[in-house]
């Protein structure tokens, strides 16, 4: 018997019921992200048959694969965007979405993330940033705040975190936004925009991991982490007027870029047309 929650919950129609319940820990932000993604799909009235969702390895990779009911490709660690690139070239009319974590996409997969943004391929990436390697037991990540404690920085983290949204906006993406799991409605709106933008789009979601991060950093309750996000979030418009010192430890939220640039797969198809035309290969 399926517990009542699965039949009462309106977004359940988008989930692979045989894969439920999810493996996510209680209090994990992953559920919020899955909920926001399902709501965005619902509000846009997208047919899940027109979706291919790709993910890598780690807790956040599970959010959409296997749970989301679409064609789903659960790939090797860090490589989701490269797999998705092949899918998008093959299915240019489908929405190709990558949902994965910061360790997966920005650390081992940082190269693919950077180059997909540069290429401006029409893929939507939802990057769940919880500052930690959750599935492997709470080790330091390239996103872990300076000074935070993790299992591999038991005294304190002496490295500086990678600012993912800023980096990918600079790399050439068409759309970049950052929200936290405490900004659910803004998050849904941004996912909707990202899905509609023609080009590479990134929605970074700062998400709580009370089990592996919060517990070791004086925030063992999920609500404490959400309060931490709310207290330290700074809208991007305000952040522009602040000094780097003032922004230390803050989460800059909002839309970083929203622009039109030539998109990779359509350019590729345009090129093919030109070449075929040039060599007289088009059927007359």
């Amino acid at each position: 018997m399926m517990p009542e929650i699965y039949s009462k919950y309106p977004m359940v129609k988008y989930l692979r019921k045989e894969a439920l319940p999810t493996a996510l820990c209680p209090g994990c932000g992953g559920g919020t992200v899955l909920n926001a993604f399902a709501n965005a799909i619902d509000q846009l009235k997208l047919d899940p048959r027109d979706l291919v969702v790709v993910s890598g390895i780690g807790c956040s990779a599970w959010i959409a694969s296997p749970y989301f009911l679409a064609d789903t490709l659960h790939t090797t660690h860090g490589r989701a965007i490269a797999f998705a690139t092949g899918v998008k070239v093959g299915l240019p009319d489908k929405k190709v979405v990558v949902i994965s974590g910061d360790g997966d996409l920005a650390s081992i997969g940082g190269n693919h993330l950077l180059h997909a943004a540069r290429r401006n391929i029409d893929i939507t990436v939802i990057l769940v940033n919880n500052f930690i390697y959750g599935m492997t037991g709470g080790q330091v990540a390239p996103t872990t705040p300076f000074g935070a404690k993790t299992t591999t920085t038991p005294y304190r983290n002496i490295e500086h975190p990678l600012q993912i949204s800023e980096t990918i906006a600079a790399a050439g993406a068409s759309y970049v936004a950052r929200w936290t799991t405490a900004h659910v409605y803004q998050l849904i709106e941004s996912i909707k925009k990202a899905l509609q933008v023609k080009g590479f789009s990134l929605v970074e979601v700062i998400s709580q991991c009370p089990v592996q991060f919060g517990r070791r950093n004086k925030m063992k309750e999920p609500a404490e982490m959400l309060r931490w996000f709310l207290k330290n979030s700074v809208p991007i418009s305000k952040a522009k007027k602040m000094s780097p010192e003032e922004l230390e430890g803050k989460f800059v939220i909002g839309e970083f870029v929203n622009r039109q640039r030539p998109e990779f797969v359509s350019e590729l198809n345009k090129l093919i047309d030109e070449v075929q035309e040039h060599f007289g290969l088009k059927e007359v």
Partner: protein
Amino acid sequence: MIIRGDEPEQIRLLRKLYKPGNYFMQGNEAVAYGALFAGCRFYAGYPITPSSEIAETMARELPKLGGYYLQMEDEIGSIAAMVGASWTGFKVMTATAGPGFSLMQENLGYAVMTETPLVLVDVQRSGPSTGQATKGAQGDFFQARWGTHGDHPIVAVSPTSGQDAFWEIIRAFNIAERLRTPVVFLFDGVLAHTRELVKIPDVDEVEITYRKLPQNEEEAKLPFGDPHGDGVPPMPLFGHGYFTHVTGSTHKENGLRDVYTPEVHDRLVRRLHRKIEKNRHVYEKYEEHFTDDAEILVVSWGVTARPALGAALKAREEGIKVGLFVPKTVHPFPGERMKELGKRVRAILVPEMNLGQMILEVQRFVNDDVLLKGVNKIGGVPLTVEEILREIRGVA
């Protein structure tokens, strides 16, 4: 649901672009043209010597055929993009050399586990590491077989000339499609850069195979089942509303992950092996010369099979009863035939451009009373007829 590359439009284009006849071309170009004839319409790669001309030829020719060339940020991304594209119905290929092949190993295992057809060309160069980056070698024989992790089967094909490469790459695609598996194409830097005569056939002379697609909803719901008993499940392509779930983790027949039940892992991995074992007729191929009355046997592969044939011909002129056995599919090794031949000869020589790799496979199938000797050369220069002939005389 279609596999791109087989439409009448494609036949028309191939015929218009590549007139049948004799061409003077590099081995690398022969591989590229063979792939185009086989229906490859997606190439993702990263440049590396001595394989680069394959990428260059594909970049130039694929758009003419409406196909896609992608230069990825690295080798790992290249094979990842190939897997993604294969699930949308493309026949896909990449080409690399030793170091790039090492980087691709993890996703090669992913392709084995997810039963994704693809062709991976490894133009072997002299190693370890950067070694002699521009020189040919045959040192990746075991990297092809054992490079990726876990218990996995693999099929590897190795040609002996430019002309052979044209036909063998087509065969590699056919094996990949028929068995829904990655196929490694073990080429080498010497053949890759040798220019020689290659005959391009008419499209009609080329036999092409396509992967099995699900015939009904029921088959599509079991992307990793075995409805036809041959170990090869039909492949439901992405974008057709089947909600297929593909994962490199241990999965059930319906694709859903189950890494906790020993029986599920056992059933899946054994089927992957059985699929390759049971379908030997699909990929097993070897060439024999003068083996009927041979007393001495030369076993050689790839580029080295050519001087080996020259040496066998000369030895025959001298009255030495030499035979030559050339596996064309090197993994799984044609062990049964090797065993039969091994019983009939008193000595076996195995020339190869390494310090002894295929010889270990040969050893598994011959008795101790046969004299088994490697003829090995490294340094980036191929073995010569004289060098092999000298060894034949030595055991005659």
